[in-house]
C-alpha cells in the first residue's frame, strides 16, 4: 500500500469516525478505530504484492462500514429531521391555535420548546391606559343626570346626544387600543384567554351608560385574575357594577328585606340564574328553581352606590344590607346561615369550587382551544387539576398545554371573525388596522365586543360562524385589505406557516400572477380559516 493511498484511506476513516462519534454511533466509531489500527499497523504487511488479498478485504470492509454509516446516519437524520418537523408543526400550532396567529419570527422563537414558550406567556394582563374606570364612568353618569335636570327641554336633548356621542367615542377608542394590543402582543395566548373569560362573563351594552361601563368588567375584574383562582375571578365579576347592572341585581332586594317592604321593591332572579346556568355549574349542573331563588336571596343587596344623589363622589359596589334577604338559605343541599355580605360570598366560593363548575369550564376551555368536540380524556385531566388546585386557572392551562391531546391535527377550529382579522394583521406584520377594517367589519359579522345580545356570549363552534353570508363578508374584507397593502407573499406564508402550508394551497397561490390576488387567497385559504 503506497503512502498516498494509505493517507487518503486514513482521512476517510477519520472523517467517518468523527461523524460517528458526533452522532453517537459508537459501534461504527469502534469499528473504524479498529480499521484505522489495522491499516496503520498492518500496512507493512500490505506492501508486499502477495498480500493483495488483504488490500481487497480491507477495501471491502471499509466500503461496508461507509455504507452502514450512510444508512444509519440518514435514518437518524430523518428521525432528527422528523423531530425537527414535529417541533415545527407544534410551533406553528402554538402560535396559530393557542396564540392569536403567528407574527413574523414568532414560529422561530417558539420552535425550541413550543409548550414551554406558551406556558411562560401565562400572566395577568394590566391596563394602564387613560380609559375611565368603572367608578369614573358611574360618577360621570351621575353628573350627567344631575346637570341634565337643570336644563330646558331643548338643551336636554342636545346634552343627551352629546353624552351618547362621547360614550361611543370612548368605546371606539377602547376597541382600537384593545385590538392593537392583541395584534402586537408577544404573549398572545394571554389575550386569547382574556377574550375567553370576557365572553364567558359576557355583558351586552345597550345604553350610553353601558358603553362606558361594560368594557371595564374585562379590565378590572377579569384581567387581574387570569392566572389566579376562578373563585377570585367570579367574586370580582359578581361585585362589579357592570355585571350587577346588566343582570339587574343592583335593584334586586330580598322580598322580606327592609328595603323591599319600605319601597315596594323585590327580588330579581336573573343574575342568580345566569351564575348557575352559565358562569358556574352549567345548564345540566344539577340545580333547581329553588336553588336559583336561594342564590338570588344570597346575593340580594349586592348593589351599586347611588350615583344620582348629591353625595355621588363614591361609586362602585355597595352592599345594601337593608336590602339583603334575612334568614339562612339552602343552596344545593347545603345551609348557609351567614349574615350579610358573607352569605353570598360563601355561596359563590362553594359554587366556584364545585365539581360541576370544573367540568363545565374545563369543557368550554378545551372546546375553545382545541376542537369543537374536545377529547373527554383531556377535559378529565383538566378537571382533576382544577379540583386539586382549587380552581387555579394557570395550573389548568398548563395541564392542557402539556397534554398531547390538545395538539390534535384533525378537526381544527374554524376562526371567528375577530380571530380572523387579528391573525391576518399579525401574519401580515401590521402594527394596526384602520378603524373601519375592525369595527365596521365586526359589526357586520356580528362579533362586536359587548354586543353578544345574551349573557351566554358569542358561540364557540364552527356552526355559529360558518355561513354563506359570513364567508362573503370575509372575502370582501380580504379584498379590501389586499388592495391597501403590498405584501411579500413568501414572507407572509413563512410568518404564519413556516413550511407547513398545504401543497394544494401553495400550488393554487403560485398559479396566480396578480400579487394582490395571492394575498387574498392566502387569507381565505382553508389553512388560514382554521387554526
Amino acid at each position, binding site marked *: 500500500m503506497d503512502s498516498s493511498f494509505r493517507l487518503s484511506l486514513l482521512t476517510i476513516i477519520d472523517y467517518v469516525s468523527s461523524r460517528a462519534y458526533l452522532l453517537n454511533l459508537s459501534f461504527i466509531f469502534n469499528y473504524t478505530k479498529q480499521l484505522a489500527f489495522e491499516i496503520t499497523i498492518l500496512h507493512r504487511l500490505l506492501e508486499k504484492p502477495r498480500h493483495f488479498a488483504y488490500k481487497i478485504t480491507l477495501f471491502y470492509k471499509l466500503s461496508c462500514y461507509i455504507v452502514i454509516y450512510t444508512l444509519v446516519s440518514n435514518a437518524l437524520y430523518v428521525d432528527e429531521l422528523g423531530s425537527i418537523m414535529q417541533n415545527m408543526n407544534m410551533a406553528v400550532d402554538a402560535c396559530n391555535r393557542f396564540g392569536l396567529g403567528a407574527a413574523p419570527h414568532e414560529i422561530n422563537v417558539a420552535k425550541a420548546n413550543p409548550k414551554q414558550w406558551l406556558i411562560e406567556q401565562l400572566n395577568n394582563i394590566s391596563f394602564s391606559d387613560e380609559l375611565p374606570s368603572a367608578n369614573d364612568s358611574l360618577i360621570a353618569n351621575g353628573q350627567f343626570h344631575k346637570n341634565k335636570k337643570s336644563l330646558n327641554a331643548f338643551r336636554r336633548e342636545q346634552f343627551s346626544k352629546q353624552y351618547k356621542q362621547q360614550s361611543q367615542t370612548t368605546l371606539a377608542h377602547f376597541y382600537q387600543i384593545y385590538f392593537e394590543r392583541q395584534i402586537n402582543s408577544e404573549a398572545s395566548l394571554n389575550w386569547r384567554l382574556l377574550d375567553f373569560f370576557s365572553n364567558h362573563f359576557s355583558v351586552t351594552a345597550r345604553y350610553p351608560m353601558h358603553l362606558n361601563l361594560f368594557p371595564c368588567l374585562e379590565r378590572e375584574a377579569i384581567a387581574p385574575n387570569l392566572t389566579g383562582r376562578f373563585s377570585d375571578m367570579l367574586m370580582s365579576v359578581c361585585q362589579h357594577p357592570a355585571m350587577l347592572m346588566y343582570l*339587574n341585581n343592583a335593584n334586586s332586594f330580598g322580598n322580606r328585606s327592609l328595603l323591599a317592604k319600605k319601597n315596594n321593591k323585590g327580588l330579581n332572579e336573573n343574575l342568580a340564574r345566569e351564575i348557575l346556568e352559565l358562569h358556574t355549574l352549567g345548564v345540566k349542573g344539577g340545580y333547581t328553581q329553588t336553588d336559583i331563588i336561594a342564590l338570588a336571596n344570597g346575593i340580594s343587596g349586592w348593589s351599586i352606590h347611588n350615583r344620582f344623589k348629591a353625595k355621588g363622589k363614591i361609586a362602585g359596589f355597595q352592599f345594601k344590607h337593608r336590602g339583603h334577604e334575612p334568614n339562612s338559605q339552602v343552596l344545593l343541599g347545603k345551609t348557609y346561615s351567614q349574615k350579610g355580605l358573607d352569605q353570598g360570598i360563601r355561596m359563590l366560593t362553594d359554587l366556584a369550587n364545585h365539581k360541576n363548575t370544573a367540568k363545565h369550564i374545563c369543557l368550554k376551555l378545551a372546546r375553545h382551544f382545541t376542537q369543537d368536540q374536545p377529547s373527554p380524556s383531556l377535559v378529565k385531566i383538566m378537571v382533576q387539576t382544577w379540583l386539586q388546585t382549587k380552581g387555579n386557572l394557570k395550573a389548568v392551562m398548563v395541564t392542557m398545554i402539556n397534554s398531547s391531546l390538545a395538539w390534535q391535527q384533525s378537526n381544527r377550529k374554524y376562526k371567528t371573525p375577530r380571530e380572523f382579522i387579528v391573525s391576518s394583521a399579525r401574519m401580515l406584520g401590521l402594527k394596526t388596522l384602520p378603524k373601519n377594517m375592525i369595527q365596521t367589519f365586526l359589526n*357586520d359579522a356580528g362579533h362586536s365586543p359587548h354586543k353578544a345580545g*345574551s349573557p*351566554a356570549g358569542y358561540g364557540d363552534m364552527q356552526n355559529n360562524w360558518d355561513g354563506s353570508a359570513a364567508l362573503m363578508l370575509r*372575502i370582501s374584507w380580504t*379584498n379590501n385589505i389586499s388592495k391597501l397593502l403590498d405584501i411579500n407573499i413568501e414572507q407572509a406564508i413563512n410568518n404564519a406557516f413556516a413550511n407547513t402550508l398545504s401543497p394544494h394551497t401553495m400550488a393554487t397561490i403560485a398559479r396566480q400572477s396578480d400579487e394582490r390576488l395571492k394575498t*387574498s387567497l392566502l387569507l381565505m385559504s382553508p389553512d388560514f380559516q382554521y387554526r
Partner: protein
Amino acid sequence: MKRRQFIKLLGSSLLAYHCPSRAFLGNKAENKTDKKLIWIILRGAKDGLHTIIPRQEQHRLNQYRPRLSSALRSTALPLNAAFSLHPSLKYAHQLYQQGECSPIVAVGSGYEQRSHFDGQDFLESGSGRITQTEGWLARAVDIKQASALALNRSTPISLRSDKVTASTWYPADQQSADSKLFDALSDLYEKSPILSKRLSEGLAVSQMSQGVDLSKSGKATELKLAKACAQLLTGDKGYDAAMLEISGWDTHNDQVKRLSYRLKVLDKCIRLIKEGLKDDWQNTVVAIATEFGRTVKENGTKGTDHGNASAMFLLGGGLKGGEVLGQWPGLEPSQLFENRDLLPTTNTFSWLASVLEQHWGFNETQLNTVFPHIKSYSDKLVL
C-alpha cells in the same frame, strides 16, 4: 317491421303531446310550490300574557302585575270578548279584522326548564330533544324540495341539516369583490367541501339579491331583514321558505317600555313582509313563536322572569284567521304551572305541523319525519 315501429312511435308521441308533464318532467315538478312559509323566531322568551291579554281576567292581572297592567288597561286592542291585543300591534290587529291573522294563546313547546339557550335549541330542532345539528324547517324543506333562505349571518339551527343547504343573506356595507377572486377561490376550495358549499351558496344569494331595496325600512336591522325577506321570496326565482329572528324579548326589568317597543318592531316587520310580498301574500303563511313565556307575577324590577306558556301567531293572506285559537287555562293559583307560570294547553310544534299539513300538503308520514314526537291539530287554519 320498420313501418309498424314507426306507427307505434307516432301514436305514443301523440299521447305524450297531450300529457306533457308526465312525459317530460319528473317528480320535482309535483312538489314545486308557490306556497311560501316564513318562520319567525322571537328569541328571549316573549311575554304572552301581555301580548294577547286576557280581558276576562283583568282582576287577576291587576293582582299579579300591579305595575305592568295599569299601563295597558285602556289602550289594548280588542280581539273578542275574552282577549285583546297589546296596543303596539296595530297592524296585526288590522290583519286580524281582515281574517289574515290567527293569534294562539297558552302555547308551549314542551320544554319546561326555562333556559333560553336550551329552550331555543329545543324549539328549533323540533324533534323533542335539544340538538344543534338539525332543525325542523330543514327537514320540512327537504321533503318539500323547496329552497330556503335564512336572513342571518350563519345558518340557524332550524335550517341546519346534513342534506339540505340553506342559504344565508345579511346586509353588509362592504364592497363586494370581483369575479377573478371568486374563480380563484373555487379552485382553492376544491378540497374543502364546507367552504366550497358556502362559497357557491354565497354567490347564488349574491346574484339573487342584486336588486334588494332596503330604503325606507327603518334603522333597526330586523326591519331591513324583513323587507329583504319579502323581496327575496317574490317572483319565480324567489325562495320558498325563509327564516327571520327578532331578539330582545327578555324583559326582566322595565317590561312596559321594552315590550311595547319590541312589539312595535314586530308589528312593523309584519307590515313590511305583507307589503313586500304583494300578490304572494295570498299564498304565504308566517308562523311566529318564542321558546317560552314569562312568570304570571311581576318581579321586583318591574319585569317578569322566565315562565312556560306564551303566545303564538299565524299570519297570511290565505288563512282562515279572525279567531283566537288555543285553550285558555285560567289564572287561578290552582290553574298555574308550578304555581308561577301560565299552563300550556297546546303544543307549538303541533300548530306548526298543522301548517305544514294544510299549507304544504304534508301527509302523516311526512309530518312524522319533521316532528316525530307530536301530532298535528285538526283545527282548520288555512282556507
